[in-house]
């Protein structure tokens, strides 16, 4: 069994992908033994009516059967009354968490409103997924170049919020070394493997990040699910460690908010 903490529903704005329809996505998950996925919505990147986007996401997840889809709604703190989106995610849709795209929504992590949003998530008992990038900045659409999220302010924000549970998505293309070690030192930050590269990259990652804080993530349907699966094989981990990354850590994280 695998828990994929990094997947999306709806359509990537710049390309159709082979698994961007729910039945194809579910077929892919079944093929590879993924039994649960934490899904956001591509609609959350550009849509302003996030209440509708989140409602569609929650509805699609409710309809999933043998693969459990857990919705992570979008909140944009630059939109008026974003607090209501946050409330609906927690109270109406009973989501386990929210997924944030600061670079697509046009704010930096230093802005006070981001701290307010984190406080709101903590208060609501929501896991926060922060997406550092969606795709390779070198080859983005010429009219839509989106820089990576600058994660440097995170250390101070985390220190002030020990109750926060933060999952970094698509962070490992750029976040590494001392900066990465500093962030995960607090033990309530997790990262996932979708953008981890390099020969035996996952095994290398475990030199910087405690194995309890690494999660399986694919970035499906923009990325091929097979990438995360094959990278795990390449890492040649023990069966126990592999199970921890594939599902154990995610299960513990989910349980921690209940």
């Amino acid at each position, binding site marked *: 069994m695998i828990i994929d903490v990094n997947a999306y529903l709806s359509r990537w704005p710049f*390309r*159709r*992908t*082979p*698994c961007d329809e729910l039945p194809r996505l579910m077929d892919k998950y079944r*093929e*590879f*033994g993924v039994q649960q996925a934490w899904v956001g919505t591509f609609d959350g990147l550009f849509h302003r009516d996030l209440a509708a986007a989140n409602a569609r996401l929650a509805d699609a997840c409710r309809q999933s059967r043998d693969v459990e889809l857990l919705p992570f709604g979008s909140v944009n703190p630059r939109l008026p009354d974003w607090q209501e989106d946050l409330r609906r995610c927690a109270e109406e849709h009973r989501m386990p968490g929210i997924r944030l795209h600061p670079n697509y929504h046009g704010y930096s992590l230093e802005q006070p409103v981001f701290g307010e949003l984190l406080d709101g998530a903590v208060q609501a008992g929501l896991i926060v997924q922060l997406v550092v990038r969606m*795709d*390779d900045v*070198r*080859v*983005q*659409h*010429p009219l839509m*170049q989106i820089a990576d999220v600058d994660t440097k302010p995170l250390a101070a924000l985390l220190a002030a919020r020990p109750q926060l549970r933060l999952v970094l998505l698509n962070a490992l293309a750029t976040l590494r070394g001392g900066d990465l070690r500093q962030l995960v030192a607090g033990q309530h930050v997790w990262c996932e493997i979708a*953008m*981890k*590269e*390099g*020969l*035996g*990259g996952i095994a290398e990652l475990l030199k910087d990040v405690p194995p309890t804080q690494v999660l399986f993530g694919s970035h*499906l*349907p*923009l*990325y*091929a*699910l*097979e*990438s995360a*699966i*094959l*990278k*795990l*094989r*390449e890492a*040649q981990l023990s*069966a126990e460690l592999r199970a921890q990354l594939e599902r154990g850590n995610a299960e513990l994280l989910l349980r921690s908010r209940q």
Partner: protein
Amino acid sequence: MTAHMNTGRSDRPRRSARAVSRRTLLVHSAQVAGGLALATWTRGTPGSASPSTDGDIEIWDAHIHLSGVLGTVEQRVDHLLRFADAMGIARLVVYMGTSFVYDPSPEELRKQNDEVLRAVAHAPDRVLGMVYLNPKQQAASLAELDRCVRDGPMVGIKLWVALPCSAPELDPIVRQAVELQVPILQHAYDRVGENLPGESRTADVAALAARHPDASLVCLHTGNDWERGIRTIRAAKNVWSEVSGSDPTAGMVEMAVRELGAERVVYGSDAGGRSFGSQLAKVYSAGLSRDAQRLVLGGNLRRLLRPVMEKKGMKP
């Protein structure tokens, strides 16, 4: 100099294909290639695959560097092969030395190619070498081509970012490559911003191909912006699309095979900077027929290298 020459630069035991049996590699490769079997193969522990008799796909990786891993050249090769074994990859095509130099001097070219010669000598049954050339250093490059390919064990040419490849300085090198019947592997990136100063775009590769219709050109990375790159090289029938070194974006290999035909698509990883797994995933996720997988994962590269390998007495 023969194909299996030993440069004498290492007294370490040469790593033979026997270190990992051909059968093991074929079993892994065949299981990966088998559609649904991939799910089983990827979740098994290395070496646990059950024997198969229909293993007929031998994976050749067209894009390997000695940088991105640590140690001596020989240690780096061993390290690469340890992971290649886990992923069922039979052959690694290696080029450039232990450091990246954009615009290498004649001395630097020789140093880097010497390192690749050591890599080949260390594992002659698993590692193939390509000579790194700089068209801005034309005389030195032609001499290196003779030393490493005509008279040495290398089987092709790697060009990187010293000069856009549409430049006329490329012509003598390409003419010599045609003479030697070796492919040219040209890095090409279509960045949304400016490219590096001497970095080729896929349009440069297409232009070079048009000038030299007898040459075989492999467009490394297919521009990274592969939707643009595939279109750019589509009409250039003597250009192959190589799929390494970009994110494992779903749909890349599907589009390449749809637009170019499976005969013009070549798997490569760009390891050690990239993972074997992330790059193989582009091929395995593409829903290709077994025949198409066979071509992309090694068949096309073997066909490109067959003339030079046979001339050198090597088994393609």
